[in-house]
Each structure stands twice: as C-alpha cells, then as structure tokens.
C-alpha cells in the first residue's frame, strides 16, 4: 500500500529551483534513504513534505485512512495531525523545557481536556495527565532517557538530544517518520546505537521511515530503498546495491572523470 506519493514536486526560491520535478512513491513500512551532496535539496524536500514550505508546483498525497489526500500547502500542524512527524537537522528541541515535557508536548493533540478543565483541575485533567505521563515515560524508556526526565533539554549531551528529538516525534503518533540527518555529529558507537534504535522503533511502532543521512555506512546498512537528489532533481533510485554502482550517483558525489 502506498502511504506517500509525490508527483512532479517543484519549489522555486526566486530563480533557483531548490527542488524540481521530484517524484517519490513510498510504500507502507518501508525504510527509505534520501541522499545527495550538500545543497541537493534534501532538507527542502523534507520541509515541503512536512508543510514548512508550500510547493511551487506538483502534488503531495498522503494516505489517510485508506484514501489518498493532497497535503501540499497545508499547515505543518495539520500535516502532523494526519500522521507525519519529523526531526530537524539542526536540533530544535524546546530547550528550556524538561525532557519529559518535550515528549508530553507532542502528545497534545490526543489530550482530552479543555483549558477550563485544566484551570478548575477537574477529574479529566488528572486522568489525562496520568495517561500522558505513562505514555511519555514508555517512549523515554525506548530511547533510554527515562532517568533524565527532569533534566532540561538544553542540558542533555548532543547524542541524547538527537534521541530525545526522535522520542518527541514518536509521541506525535506518526505513521511516517522523517529523520533529518539523525546521525550528524555522532561518533561511530553512537551511530551504531542509533541504527539499532531506528530498526527497533520501526518494528515496535509499525512505522514507515524516511531518513536523510550523509553517513553512507548507516544508509547502506539499514535502508531498503534509496532516492538520490542532486541539484534539486532525483537522479537515481533503487536498492543500496544498485545505488552504489550507479554511474550518475558516483558522478554527483565525486565529479566526472
């Protein structure tokens, strides 16, 4: 079943086509890699898919309850509500909130009490807060941050901040998870842990995962299919083996002979 379909997507910034005529088709429970040299338009593509930018042309369709729904140009929070969550390349945690509150925040959409009930501290407030607390703690267990729940996000070490971002994205209960350079700045040990974590959450939460990554060992190891972008265009797609031997990809990375 196709969960995300992108057809002839284009984004122009002035005269520059940051993303031009890109087509993607992502199946349920796939693990997709999105690679390309610096400035190829990978993050722009993510921003288009998650609603940060509005597409100049083309269509983005998301499978919502079995029906393909066009999500191009919708607000980011609406798109997140439809089952699409992300992390950021340059970590964007809520720095002065605790680890726990960062995760709780992403569950806001499922909270079933009104502001009035919160002010009056009605039973629904306590019931829901307890439920959110339990669910948030489960997620923190998964990424191994349960003991740090009261630490402010800005005081976490770098690698753990990346993991917290993943936990926070999971808290939004996505069907598709977008990871923007999750291993950037991590050492090999941390990268190995991260690889395992991505596998684990994919199985546990029944996710489709799309990740941008420069660490080729990680991409080649875990991705089932890879799309390669260069100068905003999709120049190749296929299995890791096929991509490794693709002439155009090698040229894009290393230049022509």
């Amino acid at each position, binding site marked *: 079943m196709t969960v995300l379909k992108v057809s002839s997507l284009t984004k122009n910034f002035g005269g520059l086509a940051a993303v031009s005529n890109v087509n993607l088709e992502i199946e349920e429970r796939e693990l997709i890699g999105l690679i390309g040299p610096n400035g190829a338009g990978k993050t722009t593509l993510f921003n288009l898919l998650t609603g940060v930018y509005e597409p100049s042309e083309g269509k983005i369709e998301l499978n919502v309850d079995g029906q393909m729904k066009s999500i191009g140009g919708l*607000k980011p929070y609406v798109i997140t509500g439809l089952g699409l969550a992300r992390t*950021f390349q340059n970590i964007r945690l809520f720095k002065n909130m605790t680890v726990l509150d960062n995760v709780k*925040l992403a569950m806001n959409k499922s909270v079933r009490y009104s502001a009035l009930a919160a002010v009056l501290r009605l039973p629904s407030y306590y019931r*829901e807060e307890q439920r959110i607390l339990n669910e948030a703690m489960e997620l923190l267990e998964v990424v191994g941050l349960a003991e740090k729940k009261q630490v402010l996000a800005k005081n976490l070490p770098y690698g753990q901040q990346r993991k917290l971002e993943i936990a926070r994205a999971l808290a939004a209960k996505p069907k598709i998870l977008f990871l923007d350079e999750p291993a950037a700045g991590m050492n090999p040990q941390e990268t190995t842990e991260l690889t395992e974590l991505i596998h684990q959450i994919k199985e546990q939460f029944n996710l489709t995962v799309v990740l941008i990554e420069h660490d080729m060992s990680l991409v080649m190891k875990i991705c089932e299919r890879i799309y390669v972008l260069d100068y905003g265009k999709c120049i190749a797609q296929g299995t890791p083996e096929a991509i490794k031997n693709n002439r155009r990809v090698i040229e894009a990375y290393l230049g022509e002979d």
Partner: protein
Amino acid sequence: MKNLLNKKNACWLLLIAGSYGLISLLISAGVVNNVYLTVLMTIGINIILAISLNLIIGVTGQFSLGHAGFMIIGAYCAGVAVKQISASLGGILTGMLIGIAISGLVALVVAIPTLRLRGDYLAIATLGFGEIIRIVILNMKITNGAAGMILPKLVDWRIIFAAVVICTVIIINFCRSAQGRACISVREDEIAAEAMGINTTKYKIMAFVLGAMIASVAGALYAGAFYVIKPEMFTFNKSIDILVLVVFGGMGSFTGSFIAAGVIGVLNTVLQQFSDIRMILYGLMLVGIMIFRPSGLLGTKEFTFSALFNRFSRRKEVRE
C-alpha cells in the same frame, strides 16, 4: 478530590491563610496604617497585572505593549456599573464580570490579526491598540470623558487579596496543563511546535485573551479601591510600568512577578521622601538590576513546595 489533598496544596493553603492572618493582625494592631494599606493594595493589583502580562510575554513569548488597554476596560466597566447599576460591591463585581467578557472579546479581535506578527511589529501593533481603547473611552459620554469618574470606595484589601489568590491559581493551573505546555513551546521554538502538531496561532490567542481578561480584573479592583479613574492614568506609560515588573521579576517566573511587584511597590513608597530625585533613583536601581541580573530577579525559576520537599529529602539522604 483526592488529587487535591496532598502535602503541597496543604502548604500553599497554609501560606495563604498565614499571610491573610498576618495582614489582619498587623492592621488591627495598628502597625499597618491607611498609607501602608494603600501600598499593599497597590502591590496586590500590580501582582495581578504583572502575572497576567507574564503569561503573554514570559510564558508564550509574545511581546505585548497594550496591557493598560485591557486594564482600562476593566476599570471603566466597573465604574460604569457602579454609576448605572448599583453603588455597592455587587455593582463592582457585576462590572468586573462585564469587563472580563468585553476585554476577552476585544483581545480576541486584537489578537487574530496582530498575533501573526512577530517581535517588534507585535509590540507596535499592541501599543496602538491599547491607545485606541483608551481614546475610545476618552470620547464616550457614559465614561465622562477626560474628567474621569469619581467612585465610592467599595473594594477593601480582603477582596484584592482574594483576587490575587484566584488569579494566580488560574494562571498557574493553566500553565501546568497541556495548553500551558503548548504556550511554552511557542516561546521556545515556533517551527518545532508547529511540527509537533501545535496550532501555534490558537495558543498565542488563548494566552493573550486569558492575560487580557485577568488584566481587566485588576482594572476593576483599581476602580473600586482608589476613588478616581481617568483615561490619562492608563496610557502607554502604564503598560511600560507593568512590563517593568515582568522584566524585573524575570520573564516566565510568576514568583518573580510577585517579588517585583512587592519590591517596586515598597521602593516607590520609600523614595517618595526624595521627591525630586525619586525617578532618578528608581531608574538607577532598574539599570543596576538589569546589569547584575539580566534575566530578572528570578529568571524563569519558580518557588514550589515540591522543590523544597525534594531538597529536604535529598539533604536527609546525604546525612544518612
């Protein structure tokens, strides 16, 4: 109900009852005379103003300079209610409820276009709206224009005390909820908040409207406590005074707002004997605070009993 019965809430209740008892005792013993009582009442009203603006600026991160505009709505609704309905506490309270409703509505109308703006632009837009509200009131017949209204004294310190407690509980409870977390996330990182499914505009409006409604409560209390209300009391300068309290105490810290309102209230009284150089001393002290504590007296820290208990139990563990 059982959720409310715990050690923390018992301590808070004790603290509130204790302060109430202390003030009544000091008044009946004659230590607090009428002058001091006026200072106390001013501090109480300033606390309500400061925490309500702190909700907008400190918690949600939206820089509003129109807070006096919502205070004036509350003051005049109470004033008009006293003149037109009944010159009693009931009249003031009716006026207060009407004021809450009107300022909530006005805030909603102001918020929808202006909260799309950010930073400086938002400050200028809210400043303009505050002045518009004041000038509308200045030109209305029912408000007696520039001459203002003279009202009987209908609100004593007990009412203000109760209002401070209720407003604080409302704001703190709001901040410690899913809605409050959403407001904080807007302050922290708007793009990330949107990406986590938060409708940022909605929560900005929610905080702005709640802050405005509570500011109008302070206005109504002011009208009932201090005999005279005039439009010229609620100019842009009043908004700045409230902003000073928030920044001085620490943006995002309600404990800070309490302390700031208290310190500045006392300071103003003490400095009154140096009438000529009063504003200079006041200014110097503010500059000093900003140099030595740039994020305000308390930054974003709050006083809570649970933190206090944790510290005690940790000390005990260390000793054992």
